[in-house]
C-alpha cells in the first residue's frame, strides 16, 4: 500500500516543476497560539515565498488550519485566543497595533473548506466584495466580475445566468465562485483551507488546475489532507505535527527525501 502511494506520488511530482526561489513575503517568527490555556501552535518560524504554492500538511488537529487562519487574523473571531510571536506580511507585523484587520483581509484573501457563496446571484456574490472596496460603477463591476470568473475558470459555465442564485450551482462551481470572489479584490495572498475536500474527483481536478494557474498572480497557501493533492499542486510543503512545524522544504524534497522520520512516516501513509 505504502509503495503504491509513493509510486503515484513520484509520478505526480515529476509534473511539478522545480520550486522557484522567489522573494519571501510571509515571515513567521516564533509564533505561538493559545486557545485559553491549551497551546495549539508552538513556536512556528516559517518563511513563505511569493507566487508559489505552499502546502500545509499534517494529521487532523496538528494546527495547520489554525496557522492558516492566523495569516488573515480570522482567529480574532474566536474568544480566548492569544497569539505570541510575530507574523509579518510584506514587512508589516499583522498583529501590530496599527494594523486595520479589514485592510489586512483585503490583502490576504481566503477560500474555505465548505463553499460558502452568499444567498445572492452569482453577479452579486462578486459585486458585494468589490463594492466593499469602493468599486461602484456598473461597467467597472461588469469588467472585474467577468475577469474574476474567467480567472476562476467559471465564466463559460455561468455567463448566461449571472443573475441566478449562486446556491443553484454545483458544489465544484460554488467553490470556484468563492475563488472568483476572493480574487476579484486582487489580494496579494490567497489562503485555501482544504478547498477541494468536499468535492468529487472531477471538481477537485478543476480546482487543482486553477490553483496552479493562479500562482502566476498570487501567493497561495493551501491546507490539504490529501497527500497527492499536495504533491501535485505545491512547490513547497510544510509538515505539522501536534502544533509544531516538523519540516518545511520543497515539495520534491519533502515527499522523496524527507529529513525527519515523522515526515516520512506521514507522507508514506504509515500514520495520520
Amino acid at each position: 500500500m505504502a509503495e503504491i502511494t509513493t509510486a503515484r506520488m513520484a509520478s505526480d511530482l515529476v509534473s511539478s516543476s522545480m520550486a522557484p526561489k522567489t522573494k519571501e513575503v510571509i515571515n513567521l517568527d516564533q509564533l505561538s497560539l493559545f486557545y485559553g490555556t491549551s497551546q495549539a501552535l508552538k513556536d512556528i518560524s516559517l518563511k513563505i515565498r511569493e507566487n508559489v504554492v505552499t502546502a500545509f500538511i499534517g494529521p487532523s488537529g496538528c494546527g495547520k488550519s489554525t496557522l492558516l487562519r492566523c495569516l488573515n487574523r480570522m482567529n480574532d473571531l474566536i474568544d480566548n485566543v492569544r497569539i505570541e510571536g510575530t507574523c509579518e506580511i510584506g514587512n508589516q507585523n499583522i498583529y501590530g497595533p496599527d494594523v486595520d484587520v479589514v485592510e489586512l483581509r483585503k490583502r490576504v484573501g481566503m477560500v474555505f473548506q465548505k463553499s460558502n457563496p452568499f444567498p445572492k446571484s452569482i453577479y452579486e456574490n462578486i459585486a458585494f466584495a468589490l463594492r466593499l472596496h469602493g468599486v461602484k460603477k456598473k461597467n467597472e463591476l461588469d469588467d472585474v466580475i467577468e475577469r474574476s470568473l474567467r480567472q476562476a475558470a467559471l465564466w463559460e459555465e455561468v455567463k448566461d445566468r449571472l443573475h441566478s442564485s449562486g446556491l443553484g450551482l454545483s458544489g465544484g462551481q460554488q467553490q470556484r465562485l468563492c475563488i472568483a470572489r476572493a480574487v476579484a479584490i486582487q489580494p496579494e495572498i490567497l489562503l485555501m483551507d482544504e478547498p477541494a475536500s468536499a468535492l468529487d474527483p472531477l471538481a477537485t481536478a478543476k480546482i487543482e488546475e486553477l490553483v496552479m494557474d493562479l500562482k502566476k498572480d498570487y501567493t497561495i497557501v493551501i491546507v490539504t489532507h490529501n497527500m497527492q493533492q499536495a504533491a501535485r499542486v505545491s512547490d513547497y510543503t510544510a509538515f505539522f505535527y501536534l502544533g509544531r512545524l516538523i519540516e518545511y522544504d520543497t515539495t520534491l524534497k519533502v515527499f522523496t527525501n524527507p529529513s525527519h522520520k515523522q515526515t516520512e512516516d506521514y507522507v508514506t501513509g504509515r500514520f495520520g
Partner: protein
Amino acid sequence: MSSEAPSFARRSHGWMGIKRGHRARPLEWIIEKGIQLVSYSAIVMVFLIFIFVSREAMPIFLGQMDSAAVRPALSVDEAMKLPKEDLRKYLDMTPDEFVKADAEVIKMLVDLRIESSANETTDKDAKLNTTQWSHLLGPYQWTGYTKPEYIWQPVGTIHKYNIVPLLVGSLKVSFVALAFALPLALGAAIYVSQLANPRTKEWLKPAIELLAGLPSVVLGFFAMIVMATFLQSVFGYATRLNAFLAGIALGLAVIPLVFTIAEDALSSVPRSYIQAALALGSSRWQAAYKIVLPAAIPGVFAAAVLGFGRALGETMIVLMTSSASILSWSVFDSARPITASIAAELAEAVFDGHHYRILFMLGTLLFAVTFSLNLIGDIVVHRLKRRLEGKA
C-alpha cells in the same frame, strides 16, 4: 422488498404497530396516535371557534337584522289581514304566547302598538335599519349633523353602527405600534445576534424575551397612568388618551415577539456567510447589514407580520389607553380599535340583539383579517426562502 417503501418512511407499522416483518410496538403506536390526535384537535378547536363566532354574526352578513327604533304601526284591519306568522312577528310574540292568545288579546295588542307609536320619537332616522351594509360602511347625515359622517354610537334610541371608525382605529394604533416596535426590535435583534459579545448576549437575550411575560393589563395600567402624562407633556397634544399612546404601549408588547423571531432568524444564518464576508474584508457591521440581514429576510418578514397580527388582536392595552371612537387619521386623536369595542361593549349588549351580532361580526372580521395576514405572510416567507436557496 425493493417495491416497498423504505422502513423509515413510515414511523408506525400497521394497526397497533403490528405488521409482518416488524416487531410489534403497541405502546409506541398508542402514544403516537395520541399525540397526532392532540395536534389535529388544535386545528379543530380554532375551526370550531370560527364557526361559533361567524354563526352569531350570520344574520348581519345576511341582512336579516332590523335595528329600526320605530316601525310603522298598522291599523287593526290591516293587522288582522296579515298572515299569522307575520302578525306574530309584528307583535314581537313568541310562538307559545301567540298560540295561547285569543283574538281579543291580539286586537288589544295591535291597539297598544298604535297608541305607543304616537309617543315614539319623530326623528326621521328612527325608521332606519342601521344594520344594513350601507350604514355599516358608508357615511350618513344623521339628524342634527351638517354633513354625512361615519359614527359608531351603538347605544341610544338610534343605533349608529358605522364600523369605519373602529377599523381606522385598529389600523392607526397597529401602525404606530409597528413603526415604534419594528426598528427597535430589529435593531436589538441585529445587535444581540451579530454584534454583541457572547457574555452580553447571554443576559441580554433572555432579558428582552422576559418582556413578553409582562401581563398586558400591567402594561396598559402603566401606559394609562405614567406614559400618558409623560407623552402629553413632551408632545403637548390635546387628548391625553390617544392612538399614539396606545400604539407606543402596544409596541412595548410587540417588541419581545418581533425580537425573538427576528433574532432566531438572524442567528440561524450560517456562520460561513459571515466568515466569507469578513474574509473579503468587510467589517462586522457590513457583514451583518449586507449579508446576514438579507439572508434572514424571510424570518424578519415573518416577525413583522406576526407583530402586526399581535398588534391588531391585542385588547387589554388598547382598551385601557383608548377612548372615543371618532374617525380621524391623526394619531394624536382618540381612537377605539375593534378589540377594545368588543371587550367593552359585549357584556352590555342585549343577547341576540343587533349590537351583540354586530360585535360578533367584528370578531369574525378580525379573525379573517389576522388569518389571511398570517397566510399571506406564510406564502411570502416560503417564496423568499425558495429564492434565497436558488430554487426559484
